[in-house]
C-alpha cells in the first residue's frame, strides 16, 4: 500500500501534523441550565482516524456540531488548519446516519450539491468530472445518472461519501454513518471507509455506538462520560493497517473491546 506507515500514536498527537484542535471546549445551554460538554481537549493529526464512543446523551452530537461549526462553544477554542472555526466551512466534510440524497437530483447532481450551494451552478457543473472520479473511488462507477431511490442503503452512503469529499475537506466528521445499514453491509462499508481514508490520507473523526466498529477503524478511541460530557480515556489501538475484518477475532482486538466496555460500564450508563 502506498499509504504512509502510521504508528498507533498518531492519534495522540505525538507524530503527524495537527489538523484539528479543540482546546477546553465546553458547552452549556443557559436557558435550560444544562451542562452538555465539559472541557474537551482533542487533537486530530493528519491522516489519523479517531472515534468517540459514549452513551446516548453524553454530548457526542453537541461535540460534533461544535466541530462542524454549526454550534458555537460556550468556552474554549476550535482550530482547523491553524484558523479558528467560527462557522461552517468548506474544508469540513460531514456525513450522517442517513445518506440524505435528494430524489429529484441524479447521484452526480447530489454529489456536487455542496459546490452548487457555495459557488453556484456553473462551478458545480465544472466539478462533474471530479465527482465522477469520486464515484469511481467509492466503487460506484457509472452510477452518475442514476436517481438515489434506485440505490441501496450502502450505495447511497457511498454517494454521501463522495458528496462529503467533493469540497476536498481537511477533516471528515462522521456521525454514525453506517448505523442504519444491516450488519453485513456495515462491516463491509467500514472496510471501504478505511480504504478511502487511507487512499486520500484523510483525517477522520467518527461518532459511534459500536465498540467493535470504533476499534477496527480507529487509531485512537475516546471514551466519553455522560453529562456533562468529557473524555475519560483515550485508548490507542495498536493494530496494523490496513485493518481487516479477520482482526475482529484477534485476542488483542477482544482485549480492546473489553477494555472500552469496562470503561463504559464503570460509569454505569449502559
Amino acid at each position, binding site marked *: 500500500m502506498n499509504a504512509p506507515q502510521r504508528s498507533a500514536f498518531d492519534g495522540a498527537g505525538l507524530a503527524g501534523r495537527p489538523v484539528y484542535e479543540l482546546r477546553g471546549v465546553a458547552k452549556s445551554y443557559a436557558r435550560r441550565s444544562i451542562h452538555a460538554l465539559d472541557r474537551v481537549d482533542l487533537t486530530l493529526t493528519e491522516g489519523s482516524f479517531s472515534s468517540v464512543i459514549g452513551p446516548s446523551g453524553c454530548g457526542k452530537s453537541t461535540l460534533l456540531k461544535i466541530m*462542524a461549526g454549526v454550534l458555537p462553544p460556550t468556552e474554549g477554542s476550535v482550530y482547523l488548519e491553524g484558523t479558528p472555526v467560527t462557522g*461552517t466551512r468548506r474544508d*469540513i466534510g*460531514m456525513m*450522517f446516519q442517513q445518506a*440524505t440524497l435528494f*430524489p*429529484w437530483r441524479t447521484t452526480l447532481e447530489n454529489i456536487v450539491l455542496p459546490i452548487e*450551494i457555495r459557488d453556484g451552478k456553473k462551478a458545480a457543473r465544472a466539478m462533474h468530472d471530479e465527482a465522477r472520479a469520486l464515484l469511481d473511488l467509492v466503487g460506484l462507477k457509472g452510477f452518475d445518472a442514476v436517481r438515489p*431511490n434506485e440505490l441501496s442503503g450502502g450505495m447511497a452512503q457511498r454517494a454521501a461519501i463522495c458528496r462529503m469529499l467533493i469540497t476536498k475537506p481537511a477533516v471528515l466528521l462522521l456521525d454514525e454513518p453506517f448505523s442504519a445499514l444491516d450488519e453485513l453491509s456495515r462491516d463491509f462499508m467500514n472496510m471501504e471507509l478505511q480504504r478511502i481514508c487511507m487512499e486520500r490520507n484523510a483525517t477522520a473523526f467518527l461518532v459511534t455506538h459500536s465498540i467493535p466498529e470504533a476499534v477496527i477503524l480507529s487509531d485512537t478511541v475516546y471514551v466519553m462520560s455522560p453529562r456533562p460530557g468529557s473524555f475519560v480515556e483515550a485508548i490507542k489501538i495498536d493494530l496494523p493497517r490496513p485493518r481487516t475484518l479477520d482482526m475482529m477475532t484477534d485476542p488483542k482486538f477482544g482485549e480492546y473491546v473489553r477494555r472500552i466496555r469496562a470503561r463504559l460500564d464503570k460509569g454505569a450508563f449502559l
Partner: protein
Amino acid sequence: MTAIDNTDQRPETIWSEHVSFMDRIPRTIAMAGLLVGFVALWQLIYTIGVVSPIILPGPWETGADIVFVGKNLLSGGYMLTALWITIKEVIFGFAIAITIGFLLGVLVGETTFGERAVLPYLVAIDTMPKVAFAPLFLAWLGFGIASKVALAAFIATFPIVVGTAAGLYVADENARMLFKTMGASRFQTLFKMKLPLGLPQIFTGLKIAAVGVMAGAITGEFLGGGKGFGELIRVASSQLNTPRVFSLIIFLSLLGLTLFWSVVWLEKKLVFWHKSSVSGGIGT
C-alpha cells in the same frame, strides 16, 4: 420406509392463493360495469314510477338534454358564454388562492412569527363556514365577477396554506443539518431543499383547493348576479327543468375534472420522484 417416499411426485395442492373476481377484471370494465348498473337502477326507479319525473327525470330524458347542452356549447351558444364566465372565475380565483396561499404557507412554515402569530388566526378563519362570507363579498365587490372570484379564492386559499406549511415541515433533521454544514443561506435551504421536499404536501393542498375553487365560484353565482353556469343551474332549477340541471352539473363536473387533472398532471411532471405522485390520477 421413510416419511417422504413419493418425492418424485408433485404433492396435491390443497391450499392455494385465491384471486378474487374484482382483481381479475380490468379497471375500465369495472368502471363501465358500475355505470351500466347505476343507469339500469335509475331506469328501473323511473319505470316503476315511485318518484315523480320532476324530481328524478329518466336516463333517456337526461341523456337527450346532455346532447342538447353539448350542442349549444359546441355551437358557441349562450351556454358557452356562461361557461366561459365560470371558467374565468375559477381560473382567477385559483390563481389568487395559489399566490396568497403559497405566501402565507411560507410565512407560517418558515418563520416563527408566522407560526406563533399568524397561524392561530388562519385556523380560526378556516374553521368558519366560508360560504357564509358570500353576502359580504357581494356587498363589497358588487354583483359582477369579482365577488365570485373572491369567494372562490377565499375557499381555495386555506388548503394551499396548510399544504405549503406542512410541506415545509417535511425536511428532517438530517437534511437541515446537511444544508447547515454546506453553509446554505435561508433562501437556498428553502428553494433547494424544503420546498422541493414539501411538493407532495403542497400538491395535496392544491388538489383540495382545485375542488374548493369550483364550489366557491358556483356558490357565488347562486347568491346573486351571476352570469355563469351556476346561474344557468339556478334558472333551470327554478323552472323545474330537472334534466337540464343534471346535464349542466355533468358539464360543470367536466370543468372541475379538467382543473383537477391539470394539477395532477403538473404534479406528475414536478414530483416524478415521489411514490404518491400518482395520487388522484387515474391509471398509473
